[in-house]
């Protein structure tokens, strides 16, 4: 089985690719101008950020970047395409012959090119007699198209591959998670000899579904000695099946010509001037090697945020790996959505200070967690017990928890995990005066003793 993907990702620029219209227009036809409406006399002007993002991606995939690039006109008629030609790249795209290291397996990248998105069509009217209503807010939004060679060998692998690739892409061009729906994929899949293309599938899950459906369909056909025809299909998201795309009256001939309104771009020089940041997956690998963490944890960190990784590395430098990793994977990760909005230099040093104190034993784990939580929260927290470490207090807290949980001894006899209920209560009521280790010991001891 061979699978190749053509991946389209909208680039997160503030203005459109060839005009200054904003990219965040909501009300229909609010972010429009003569250029993206294809009005006579209006012409394009290339957005520097879009070009740079394309080049960053070409570098990410280790592509050969030509000395010069330019754009081309791809002519076809469709109601969402304002000029009835799309400005895209044909010869000399921003990148060619790249590779993506997918967990040790090289997936070859045929090309990376930039192009403009057409407008969005809303269909209205009865099926078969639909009229189109066009919103040009999307017309001219920059897209990157990444074309892989058919190096993927099954639908699950394709999805994992695309997940990894998107992790890298997101970081490289600053694409937020919410934009994931704007990933559109054309999937080429052949189980036997003939290749079928499933066009314009939105999102990762649909892509895997479409591919799986094709595997089953093509396998069945081959088993019953039918021939799979080379064709273009589309994916019906509701019925979760692929269907033959409507046959056109005739084949278009795109008649590519160079776009004469833009000129050329010396992209090799521009690409060389762009700084290179460590990508998430290379960082994950380095975190494993440098800090001895598991692959799972390193992935969890990079998937949460590269800023979290930065924080971890700063903490580790001051407080050692063990203490920092404990706090980062625990209380910091679970509060990250709050922290990321308020993390400034002061907060960073305060967090590092807590980690240092935890690491040298001046505070125990629960207290460290409580202190950190207090840093992340607006509310004034109870500053906790002053009678730190008094065994009588722990004794009392455990007894209080026992009486608040009638039947706990029976439950514990059935399943030792019932102890967690008491442990939780005691942790809450003692507010960090005792370490979790001390509490666990005391609670277990009490439960073993029986009622």
């Amino acid at each position: 089985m061979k699978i190749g993907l053509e991946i389209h990702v909208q680039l997160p620029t503030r203005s459109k690719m060839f005009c200054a219209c904003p990219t965040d227009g909501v009300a229909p036809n609010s972010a429009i101008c003569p250029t993206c409406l294809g009005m006579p006399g209006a012409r394009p002007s290339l957005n520097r950020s879009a070009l740079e993002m394309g080049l960053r991606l070409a570098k990410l995939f280790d592509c050969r970047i030509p000395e010069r690039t330019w754009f081309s006109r791809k002519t076809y008629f469709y109601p969402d395409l304002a000029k009835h030609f799309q400005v895209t790249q044909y010869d000399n795209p921003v990148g060619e012959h790249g590779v993506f290291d997918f967990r040790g397996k090289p997936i070859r990248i045929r090309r990376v090119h930039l192009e403009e998105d057409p407008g969005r069509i809303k269909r209205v009217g009865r099926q078969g007699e639909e009229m189109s209503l066009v919103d040009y807010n999307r017309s001219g939004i920059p897209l990157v198209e990444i074309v892989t060679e058919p190096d993927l060998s099954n639908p699950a692998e394709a999805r994992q591959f695309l997940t990894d690739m998107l992790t890298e892409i997101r970081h490289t061009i600053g694409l937020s998670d919410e934009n994931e729906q704007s990933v559109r994929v054309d999937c080429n899949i052949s189980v036997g000899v003939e290749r079928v293309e499933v066009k314009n599938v939105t999102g990762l899950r649909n892509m895997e579904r479409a591919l799986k459906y094709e595997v089953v369909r093509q396998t069945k056909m081959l088993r019953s000695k039918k021939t799979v025809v080379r064709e273009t299909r589309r994916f019906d998201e509701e019925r979760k099946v692929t269907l033959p795309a409507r046959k056109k009256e005739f084949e278009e001939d795109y008649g590519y010509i160079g776009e004469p309104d833009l000129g050329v771009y010396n992209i090799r020089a521009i690409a060389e001037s762009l700084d290179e940041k460590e990508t998430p997956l290379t960082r994950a690998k380095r975190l494993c090697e440098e800090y001895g963490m598991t692959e799972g944890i390193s992935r969890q960190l990079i998937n949460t945020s590269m800023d979290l990784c930065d924080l971890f590395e700063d903490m580790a430098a001051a407080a050692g790996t063990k203490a920092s990793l404990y706090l980062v994977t625990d209380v910091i990760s679970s509060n990250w959505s709050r922290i990321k909005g308020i993390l400034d230099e002061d907060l960073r040093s305060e967090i590092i200070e807590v980690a240092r104190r935890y690491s040298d034993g001046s505070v125990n784990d629960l207290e460290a967690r409580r202190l950190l939580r207090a840093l992340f929260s607006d509310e004034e927290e109870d500053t906790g017990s002053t009678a730190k470490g008094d065994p009588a207090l722990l004794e009392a807290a455990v007894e209080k928890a026992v009486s608040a949980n009638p039947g706990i001894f029976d439950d514990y006899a059935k399943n030792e995990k019932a102890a967690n209920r008491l442990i939780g209560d005691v942790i809450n009521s003692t507010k960090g005066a005792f370490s979790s280790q001390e509490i666990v010991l005391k609670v277990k001891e009490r439960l073993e003793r029986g009622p």
Partner: protein
Amino acid sequence: MLDIIQRRIFMDKETVRRVAMLARLELSEEEIESFTKDLGDILEHFSMLDELQDLDDYGFNPVEVVDVLRDDEPHQEIPAEELLRDMDTYEDYVRGPRLS
């Protein structure tokens, strides 16, 4: 100098029909007839280009236009309402023909 094989391009009505379809033009029989002749004459004249060997150098503009880029600053000069003024719209969507 002429080591290329001279393939003459003939213009016929079939080709004119196909090209017209690509360009979304509907031609009458008379138009097809006259365009076939005109285009045939013109292409015959163009065939002088076959005398020339391929040259490496070409550009898309007669003067150098290099690295002209715009900063990524959103900006709209003409209000959207003004642009939509003369268009056929429905709830601010532009009406278009049937898709299928």
